[in-house]
């Protein structure tokens, strides 16, 4: 089998819950964790006679996301009923979009290692309503909670362009970053705001022949970890299965599998894809949507530079490391904060260090963002400028940033108050240095003789100056003076 090679082929279906004020077709607020069946009305309960009314905000958010995914936006899109019986589906049909989705073909750029990106084609993006939840309590009966029924979901389907578990994960993470950037979804994995269904198979080359394994669809994954691991597991399982049975892809042998989070394996749910007939037809209760140019322009105006583009620009324009660029662009408010501070004339690297080394940690500890800490870009810009100018040391900068969060005071006031302003008066520092030199003749000799001990002696003398100035001497000026007096 040494001549065997294989390639993983994955297409991904992603459901993203939009963060609209109300549900897709009624006035109920979106729900998480409330008492069962407390956020419902005749419409989302599917009561007789109730009629859906389209939530325009959901359509706007979906179109915005589709635009960010470079999708063609349909000039005519409509609502279809997808019929199937399930207890969590109160009407026994789901309002969805069948043949005319609001978003047509597009693509997403996903970051790969080494600052490279890969373009993955998007097949379609459409809007639909979520179902409720079946609660399988103990015993003979089950219960249904319809709080989630009618929640707007954006379904995004990629082409099978992904070729590794890492790429699959990268796409999911990137999509999360995009929808958060656009403000169309909180994309909170803990709350089930993103759900993934990868379609996985392998293309195997052996003995100059090509084989394709049967496609497996893994249902309902709701973490990046489960997504990545399930794809990796599927690849291994399918390879083993092929080696054992030689089974290859045929009409109708696509299977559906679930993910066992504890044992980290996929579990067969349905061997053959059942001949599902959803009996789609246009929902006569809703009118088609024909987005006008002014409306689309209004939505387009909410588009922004996407995170992956920003990340690349930070490396190229500001000379930041790829790692720092990734941290700063992870969410839009941080990146906006960073850029605002840089725009005010602060050094990009200094601002970056303040934010990545301390600011974001403080925010995370307090479960907040930078603005939530009471910080503003102008204050951080001022602080960065003080460090850059040598008015304070870099470590004093961190002390001041912490104090800014705690007290809400301005950095210059805090520098005074905390006695962190560096002594930069050359005359005064020269006087202190002269005193130190007089007191440490042995060290002076070590420096003037040169050799191994000179470097250590230099550090010792610098330290003495710092001690006499209580750490406030500008180290650069002291070093310059020392060189001038003793040669370097």
């Amino acid at each position, binding site marked *: 089998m040494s001549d065997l090679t294989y390639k993983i082929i994955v297409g991904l279906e992603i459901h993203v819950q939009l963060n609209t004020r109300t549900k897709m077709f009624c006035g109920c607020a979106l729900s998480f964790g409330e008492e069962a069946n407390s956020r419902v009305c*005749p419409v989302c309960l599917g009561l007789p006679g109730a009629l859906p009314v389209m939530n325009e905000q959901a359509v706007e958010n979906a179109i915005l996301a589709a635009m960010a995914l470079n999708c063609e936006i349909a000039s005519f899109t409509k609502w279809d009923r997808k019929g199937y019986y399930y207890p969590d589906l109160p009407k026994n049909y789901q309002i969805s979009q069948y043949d005319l989705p609001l978003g047509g073909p597009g693509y997403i750029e996903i970051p790969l290692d080494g600052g490279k990106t890969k373009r993955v084609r998007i097949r379609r993006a459409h809007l639909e309503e979520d179902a409720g939840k079946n609660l399988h309590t103990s015993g003979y009966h089950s219960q249904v909670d319809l709080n989630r029924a009618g929640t707007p979901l954006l379904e995004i389907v990629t082409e099978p362009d992904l070729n590794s578990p890492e790429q699959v994960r990268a796409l999911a993470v990137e999509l999360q970053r995009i929808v958060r950037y656009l403000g169309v979804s909180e994309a909170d994995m803990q709350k089930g705001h993103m759900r993934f269904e990868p379609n996985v198979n392998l293309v195997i080359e052996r003995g100059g022949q090509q084989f394709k394994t049967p496609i497996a669809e893994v249902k309902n994954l709701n973490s990046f970890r489960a997504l990545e691991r399930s794809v990796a597991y599927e690849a291994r399982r399918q390879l083993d299965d092929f080696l054992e049975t030689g089974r290859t892809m045929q009409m109708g042998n696509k299977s559906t599998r679930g993910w066992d989070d504890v044992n980290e394996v996929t579990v067969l749910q349905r061997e053959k894809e059942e001949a599902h007939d959803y009996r789609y037809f246009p929902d006569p209760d809703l009118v088609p949507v024909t987005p006008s140019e002014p409306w689309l322009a209004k939505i387009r105006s909410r588009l922004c530079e996407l995170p992956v583009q920003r990340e690349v620009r930070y490396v190229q324009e500001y000379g930041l490391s790829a790692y720092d660029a990734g941290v700063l662009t992870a969410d839009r408010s941080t990146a906006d904060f960073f850029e605002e501070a840089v725009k005010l004339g602060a050094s990009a690297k200094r601002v970056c260090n303040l934010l990545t080394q301390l600011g974001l940690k403080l925010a995370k500890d307090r479960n907040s963002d930078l603005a939530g800490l009471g910080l503003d870009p102008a204050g951080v810009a001022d602080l960065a400028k003080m460090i850059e100018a040598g008015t304070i040391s870099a470590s004093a900068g961190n002390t001041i940033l912490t104090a800014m969060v705690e007290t809400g005071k301005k950095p210059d006031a805090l520098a005074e108050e905390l006695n962190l302003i560096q002594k930069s008066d050359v005359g005064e520092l020269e006087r202190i240095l002269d005193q130190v030199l007089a007191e440490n003749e042995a060290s002076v000799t070590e420096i003037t003789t040169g050799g191994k001990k000179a470097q250590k002696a230099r550090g010792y003398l610098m330290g003495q100056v710092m001690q006499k100035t209580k750490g406030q001497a500008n180290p650069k000026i002291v070093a310059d003076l020392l060189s001038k007096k003793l040669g370097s």
Partner: protein
Amino acid sequence: MALHELTALELRDRIAAGTLSSVEATRAVLDRIERLDPTVGAYLAVFADRALESAQAVDRRIAAGEKVGPLAGVPLAVKDVLCTSFGATTCGSKILENFHAPYDATVIRRLQAADAVIVGKTNMDEFAMGSSTENSGYRKTANPWDTSRVPGGSSGGSAAAVAARLCQAALGSDTGGSIRQPASFCGVVGLKPTYGRVSRYGLVAYGSSLDQVGPITQSVADAALLLQVIAGHDPCDSTSVSEELAPVEDYLTRLNEPLERLRIGVASDFNAGADPAVREAIDRAVEGYRQAGAQIVELAMPHLDYAIAAYYVIATAEASSNLARYDGVHYGYRTKDPSDYIEVYSKSREEAFGKEVKRRIMLGTYALSSGYYDAYYLKALKVRNLIRGDFVRAFERCDCMMMPVAPTTAFAFGEKADDPLKMYLSDIYTIAVNLAGIPGISVPCGFDEAGMPIGLQVIGPAFSEARLLRIARMHEARTDWHTKRPALAG
């Protein structure tokens, strides 16, 4: 003059003037229901206490000199297809036997805002599927003109209630003729408004793209009065038309002004399929208009022959989806001791749905199934467009069309019940109007040899209700058919 001889408009005026109390009027209706409804069987539920309370409230407000609504104190009935927050909403189906809606349909809210007194909910074919009210899961409704005959359907209860004066007026719903046909069979006025004119919110759906609520009344003026109250945009119904696109007109003020130089379209070939007595009555009515100065235009309507086929695909397809929610899980009837959740569905539906409803669900499910969708559903939609086109072209040449409402007068119980196709064919003159989404009205225009009423159907372009009512009123003003009452309501 006895109270039951008054129209809704006349009654309203007396109540408003203080010469009659709503309690008196309501009590009179409740007394008649008690006396006659065991024979007629129009009602599924009567809300005597609630009605009297509403009536008292109206009387108090009038006595206090307060302003009251345009239907203040008038006792009305509504078809049990409309959701009410009081009483059950059964749709004539066992599957909703004890279903109490937690909300009022928009038209119910509008009636109540107009201070109407709702006395009860009327019988109907289960889920509005039928032409005789024989498909009700609860009771038989008799035609007040001859209790061995059906009242028509599916709004048979409302039409019979108005004909027997068991209410002053009523609301029905019309998907393929369900207001006009029973109105014709019972010798009263029935108006199906333009699709989108009246909100469907709270109207339990049968064929969503066809359903429309409308009045069943003793006179054209009453139909205008009720339409005025229930018409208008509703933000809860996406298919209700905006005030901008089609403002609600004043239906009453100019109702009695005849239209001059009226052009009436007639499709003689199409009408030829009706019984001779029906044809004669229609011809006589049209001749009346001609004598009054109208011009008669002969029309070709080449696609009307396909209306029934297209209708029974589209309506049943929508119904198969609309009725999927009655599954025994969330509300309504649930089978006893199911062995698993699939049986909750299958047995609940099997046990509680009637034969005709099952038939239509199966037809519709078939038409939407993959492999058949194009051949049935899609083709039916194309036919629907052709029929719309026929009417658009027709209305370039005439102001309204006239034709029978039904090929026959009311038939005997059981006469068509075992032959669904025969029953479907009786909708031939009403169905195309629903497919085209345009308004149609049935007004009494004669009787057959057996003394059963015949209706004249007047059809107009979309949102032409004001003119349509005036045209119907022209006929009513020159004839006295509408003043005839069945002996039972004498």
